[in-house]
């Protein structure tokens, strides 16, 4: 600290009691910026889910059959299941480091709405996992002989589905962050909630492969996403308060 002799500069005035500092937008942006910076500094965490995603898709032809007709049939499901598991794999670390170093306590004690901070964290998580998974999906589609007509459906369904996976997974992560070994529990909690997303996601891809209209499936995925966006942050925030107070 300062030398004993040096006088501390005058501290600022204490804030008035009525002063309202409510800027949810700037908190959201600051959170996203911070999370991306953190992820960029720990790049190995960033590529983990992507490598997993790629590995699952590479192993399937080896394990089942390299026959294009078989793989074409399996492709929508395999890509979607791999994306789902890759997201789940990355979920446990979402709040873990914040919990361990005390940042989470500070987030809970900040005057900013927890809803926004939590939403920022989930959006950043999606930018780092869901978005790259979506962008990589056509590559996996080609590896698994997914017909070209199915690519659009695959990308769109993942684009709408993976944010929902992040939002739901974050609820599980928030509930288990106080436990030493939360990894298994997270899967048990979250997998049942992932099932509707998986069903409509693969249905959208299959519909686009066979030339049937996809809009219905995509609309349902969009509805799930809208529901998740408005309700999941509330659940995550409440779960975090419980986890930290324990």
């Amino acid at each position, binding site marked *: *600290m*300062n*030398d*004993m002799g040096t006088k*501390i*500069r*005058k*501290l*600022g*005035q*204490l*804030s008035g*009691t009525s*002063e309202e*500092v*409510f*800027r949810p937008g*700037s*908190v959201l942006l*600051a*959170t996203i910026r*911070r999370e991306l*910076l*953190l992820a960029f*500094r*720990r790049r190995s965490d960033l590529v983990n889910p992507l490598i997993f995603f790629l590995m699952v898709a590479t192993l399937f032809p080896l394990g089942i059959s390299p026959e294009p007709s078989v793989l074409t049939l399996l492709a929508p499901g395999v890509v979607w299941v791999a994306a789902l598991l890759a997201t789940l794999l990355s979920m446990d670390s979402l709040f873990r*480091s914040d919990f*361990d*170093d*005390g*940042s989470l*306590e*500070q*987030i*809970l*004690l*900040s*005057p*900013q*709405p927890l809803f926004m*901070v939590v939403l920022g964290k989930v959006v950043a998580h999606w930018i780092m996992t869901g978005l790259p998974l979506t962008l990589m999906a056509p590559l996996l589609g080609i590896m698994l002989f997914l017909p070209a007509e199915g690519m659009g459906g695959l990308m769109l369904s993942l684009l709408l589905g993976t944010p929902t996976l992040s939002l739901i997974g974050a609820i599980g992560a928030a509930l288990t962050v106080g436990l030493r070994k939360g990894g298994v529990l997270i899967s048990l909690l979250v997998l049942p909630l992932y099932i509707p997303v998986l069903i409509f996601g693969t249905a959208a891809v299959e519909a686009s492969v066979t030339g049937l209209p996809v809009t219905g499936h995509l609309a349902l995925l969009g509805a799930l996403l809208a529901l998740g966006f408005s309700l999941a942050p509330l659940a995550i925030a409440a779960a975090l308060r419980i986890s*930290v*107070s324990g």
Partner: protein
Amino acid sequence: MSDQLVSENMSEQVSEPLLRVENLFCERDERVLFDELGFTLSAGQILQVEGQNGSGKTTLLRILCGLSRHYEGEIVWRGEPVSQQRERYHRELVYLGHQPGVKAVLTAEENLRWYAALDGSIDDSVISYALMQVGLEGFEDVPCHMLSAGQNRRVGLARLYLSQAPLWILDEPFTAIDKKGVAAQEALLVEHAERGGCVILTTHQELQLTDYLSHINLDRQVGTS
């Protein structure tokens, strides 16, 4: 029995206490940590919570700042229960816990900028001033995992220089801080008290700021149920 625990030297100074705690009861693993605990805290007061290891000091501070809700009793801030005005209370509160809340992969400056954003009220330009005050000048761009434990602690303490909140709740703020640093920190606490703030802290250090200091001892509370 509650109010006598706080030494009387400050009682006549300010009329309306900022923080009032009544009948606080907390039990952990079927062990009563404190029961019928009560005290008041007025502007310009520094309250040192004393007690043995495991006597519930950290638990008390976590309850006071609203992190833990495993308690019974009433915590009143500016005449209104804390549970009914969480956002306002948190706006007027700085809590430094056991963990400094410093991200190891971020630099000191990036850490503080995040807290500035969380606080919403802090001007970005004071960050370098705060880092200078805690003796981290020249370390702004070093990731915190390269800094020592004491320096990490100082990154956390720098938030006090940024804060305009009247209530500071500090859990062992002097851990790993050297002698000179502790003296500067005590000077900061005094200045905070003089501008009308109040502080609740735990520490095993002997504090020099006797003019402002009152004590509460949790040892006496053990087993009073």
